[in-house]
């Protein structure tokens, strides 16, 4: 059984608490469509990662077996602390390359596609990142940390990052010096100039300070959340693949192998020379958050789809150890097709017209 299963009620409870506190303070931190999309993207990623995660763990365990140099005493707390600190260091690089290499950004962009910033944003995780993330943790395998240590510290790192996705907690004094906090993580999710490519840390922010990517939140310029090439969709499947499609289209429209390769491996902001004249510049004052009409019946339908999705996910996580790989893929595929269709339906012209009426 996947350990993340035990955290699902905890995640939902904290979202409910954040909603309640925000309501009491008169803040509007949640929009239904955005929240539902975040939850749906999170669920899709869990379905996909039951297969993708196996690939990661398989690679890791084979490398530990063949090349792991040291034996670690699992009863010694120091083993776990060293592993966690090292994991966090390599996470910094996973995250940084996920932002600074376009083809890897295509996997990570979905996490930043929300134009809100709340605890549900934390659940908006990528379904396609599994293919490259394991590579960065090879040094841990070479050091001989057993696969169970890798899983546990990975989970700690992931779960830690949940609570930093909130606007309700301000600056945390001296903790800002070495920890990833809600304040410095808000900067990471901002699309203002000072926020771009900053604060990649998972638990510790010392890596950002060490490698020059740290930025403090500014009182005079609050972060504007989202990405500069917005998703403009509520479809969780499209959210995961749209940037791959954009890169493919850009590469096709670009002449010369050098520039075609740049489309994949340069930073996400790189523009081919022939398209540079038409490139849109980002103007913060003109930024409008994506929004579509959502009458009550649509809200009810959206909530129902997420509830059904959650139930299916929990069921899947419970039964998946007894399923064959083929059954897991079929189950996941069926759920993803449903999400894809729901996502399409939300923006279908007839639905939008009915919503207007």
């Amino acid at each position, binding site marked *: 059984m996947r350990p993340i299963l035990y955290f699902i009620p905890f995640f939902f409870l904290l979202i409910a608490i954040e909603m309640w506190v925000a309501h009491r303070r008169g803040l509007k931190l949640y929009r239904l469509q955005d929240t539902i999309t975040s939850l749906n993207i999170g669920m899709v990623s869990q379905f996909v990662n039951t297969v993708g995660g196996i690939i990661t763990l398989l690679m890791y365990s084979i490398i530990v077996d063949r090349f792991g140099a040291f034996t670690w005493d699992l009863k010694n707390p120091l083993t776990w602390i060293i592993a966690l600190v090292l994991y966090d260091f390599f996470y910094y690089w996973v995250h940084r390359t996920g932002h600074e290499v376009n083809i890897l950004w295509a996997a990570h962009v979905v996490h930043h596609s929300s134009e809100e910033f709340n605890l549900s944003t934390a659940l908006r995780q990528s379904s396609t990142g599994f293919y490259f993330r394991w590579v960065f943790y090879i040094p841990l395998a070479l050091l001989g940390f057993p696969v169970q240590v890798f899983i546990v510290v990975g989970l700690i790192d992931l779960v830690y990052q949940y609570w930093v996705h909130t606007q309700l907690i301000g600056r945390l004094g001296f903790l800002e010096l070495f920890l990833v906090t809600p304040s410095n993580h808000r900067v990471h999710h901002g699309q203002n100039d000072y926020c771009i490519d900053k604060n990649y840390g998972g638990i510790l922010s010392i890596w950002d300070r060490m490698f020059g990517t740290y930025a403090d939140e500014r009182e005079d310029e609050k972060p504007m959340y989202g990405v500069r090439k917005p998703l403009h969709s509520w479809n969780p499947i499209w959210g995961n693949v749209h940037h791959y499609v954009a890169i493919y289209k850009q590469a096709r429209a670009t002449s010369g192998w050098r520039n075609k390769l740049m489309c994949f491996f340069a930073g996400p902001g*790189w523009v081919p020379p022939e398209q540079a004249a038409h490139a849109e510049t980002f103007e913060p004052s003109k930024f409008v958050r994506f929004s579509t009409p959502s009458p009550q019946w649509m809200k009810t339908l959206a909530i129902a789809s997420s509830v059904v999705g959650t139930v299916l996910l929990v069921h899947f996580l419970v039964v998946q150890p007894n399923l064959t790989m083929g059954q897991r893929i079929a189950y996941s595929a069926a759920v993803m097709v449903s999400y894809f269709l729901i996502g399409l339906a939300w923006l279908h012209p007839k639905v939008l017209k009915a919503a207007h009426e």
Partner: protein
Amino acid sequence: MNSLAITDGLLLAVTAYLALQRHLPIALRLACGVFGVAALLGVLRFSGVYPLPSWHQFASMLGAASAFPLLAVAVLWPDSLAARNTRFAWIVLCITAVIGVIVVGVGQKRIYSDALALLSLLAVCIALVRTRQWLGALGGILMLAALVLFALKISAGSLLVPGDLLHIGMAAGLLLMSHMKPTETVMTRKPDIDSLSVVN
């Protein structure tokens, strides 16, 4: 201390020296860095100071699967981004290393890295002979010969084992190759990265 530790030490000295030469293409320096790490682990292993045989094996595999192709990129396409730009040299290194880890480290198909190293050096030799860069070509041929001798487990009498020949051949070959004349394009053309800016 055995002969392998000494010849690995020689390779380490040469690769460290070349990796620090700022005038050399970054791809060549990076490839030397990978060979250097493998050589350092070899020194630690064969001298008995701190043997980590699995790491030496891993680094050697990375050298064959990623550093040789990177070396080939530096010679075959000297004005490419991968040869001249740190970011892209690292990307080529990472991609080839990952494929190497999957195919050789996980899939145990050692022939992949052996063949890749051999083909890379063959391509380097042909390119250098065609452009009449004799010193570099000699270096390439030395490395190729050393690799073939190592693969065939041929030793030079009782003094040098196949591993020694590989280390010496690589050290001499890299040193010679670093003296090859850069082509005109290398000297005049700057990588087209001025418009590189990163967003999000």
